């Protein structure tokens, strides 16, 4: 069996989402990130208070290349049988009923992330922001770090399978839960 490189696979995945963007490395990177956002969902368990039915909301704060690609990435996808909806939050909006919140880098992003912490929200951010999941690029590959400590504060539990795939895991404090 031929050994494909991770990048090649990433290209393949990206091309599957948006064939037009195949040849631009940065574009490819963003497409992969956009695809990853909804894929975290099956590996995360939210507290019961969070809605378990109806459309699965992926909230977006701010705007960048990833947020642009998101609607395309989630098109036709489902999380546990629920259709995925992208909801753009205005700067002033509180991130309520958002199981996943993607925060694009912007002037307000730090505050948005802070506001979300402590609520049952899986924050997904780029490396510059402290989200539960942070995208990182390691040797031309898109990877992610997971801050289990933050996840625990927000009442989220993340599957060990996902943790096993992470580039780096900030472990949760042993006592606090």
């Amino acid at each position, binding site marked *: 069996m031929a050994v494909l490189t991770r990048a090649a696979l990433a290209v393949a995945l990206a091309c599957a989402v948006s064939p037009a963007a195949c040849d631009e490395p940065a574009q490819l990177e963003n497409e992969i990130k956009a695809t*990853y956002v909804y894929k975290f*969902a099956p590996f995360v368990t939210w507290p019961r208070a969070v809605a378990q039915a109806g459309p699965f909301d992926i909230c977006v704060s701010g705007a960048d290349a990833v947020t642009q690609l998101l609607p395309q990435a989630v098109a036709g996808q489902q999380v546990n*049988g629920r259709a995925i909806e992208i909801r753009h939050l205005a700067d002033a909006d509180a991130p309520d009923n958002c199981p996943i919140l993607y925060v694009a880098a912007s002037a307000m992003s730090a505050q948005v992330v802070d506001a979300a912490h402590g609520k049952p929200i899986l924050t997904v951010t780029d490396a510059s922001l402290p989200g539960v999941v942070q995208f990182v690029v390691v040797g031309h590959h898109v990877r992610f770090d997971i801050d289990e400590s933050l996840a625990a504060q927000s009442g989220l539990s993340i599957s060990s399978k996902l943790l096993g*795939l992470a580039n780096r895991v900030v472990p949760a404090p042993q006592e606090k839960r």
Partner: protein
Amino acid sequence: MSASGTAKKPRFAPWVALVGALVLLPAGVVMALYEDHLYEAQRLDQTREQAEILAASVSAAVSFGDRKAADEYVEPLRVNPGIAAVGVYAKNGPLLAGFAREGSLPPPAFLTMTPPTRHGDRIVVTVPVKQQDTALGTVYLRAFTEPMENRVLRYAILTLLAVMAVIVTGGLGSAQIRLQRQAQSLAETNARLQTEMAERARAEEALRQSQKMEAIGQLSGAMAHDFNNHLMIIKGNLHFIQRKLPPGPDRHVTAAMEGINRAAALTQRILAFSRKQDLNPVTVQLNELVTDTDDLIRNSLRENIEVVRELKASWSVVVDRNQMENVVLNLVINARDAMPQGGTLYLETSDETLVGWLGDVPAGDYVRLIVRDTGEGMSEEVRAKALDPFFTTKPLGQGTGLGLSMTVGFVSQSGGYMSIDSALGRGTAIVIYLPRANGLSAETGERKERV
């Protein structure tokens, strides 16, 4: 008494073994088929479980298309020699990771879900990769089953064992039969030996008895003969004395005469017993003889005794007529004395043909006379001594103990045989066999006798 009828029953055992084998073998075939079916189902379950375990652990790697992570989950399955090929597929079907054992086809490059199938001795199972309720991809697993040849070989070995067991059972069964036959023949031999011993004891007893009789007979016969001669001398001289005396009976001479006559009768009986009496054998029809003595018999019996005659003999015999009448009379009187309370006296004659020796008479035609009473019978001890001379159960002075002795002596001297059939409470039968008169029919014998 021989090897006839031996070991008929034990022949049963090998049949049972054979029938058991015939029943067990098809049952074994059914069991083998069922076991084979079970094995397949079990192997399928095992393979599916393995695929499900892989699908559960590989889900994140599949979801994020992480080929390296997927490989980490797939590789450990290589150590399982039962797995021919493994494939992990992303959501829309492309192969993400997998391997094929040497000599096996690689997992397909693109996969759609199929129900479990069988290709020769391979089982193919596909299971979905899911996280919570979200479908993420597919796992493909192809596993070896034990090749058919191996299974057939295993069942063949089992069949061989079963057949050997049947053979052993059959062998044991026939060995058992042989043992039983031996035991049976041993038992038969033992029984035969015991019978022979008993017969020998009886023969020895009879020999002793006849030797005793012989000795007594010779002694008493010789004495009686001499004694009789002396009596005759005394008797002759008494006649002379009588003539010399005045005419008319002399009291003393008469008394002496009576004494001599009684002594002569006694010696006559002793001579009869010792088979030395002078006989005048003629051809006699026993039926006629019994009928002729009817008056004598009737006179000697009491009112309370009924006489039943069954005279069926047609052959004649050659005997001394007077002595024979004495014998009948003697036996009738014995029967009467055995029935003081009354009863029935049977007088029977018949023609008999002996096919072998009876006592000391050979095979041939005989006329049998039976004098039977319904009296008290004899105990075994009495019966054993009944033929001894001077043995009697009658009160002192009533019997001489010579009746049966002289009867048996007379029968013996006439070439016949006499026996006693008796038991306490069952009455007594005296059975006498006399040889058939040679070449003479009853009529001619009778006529000759009368002329």
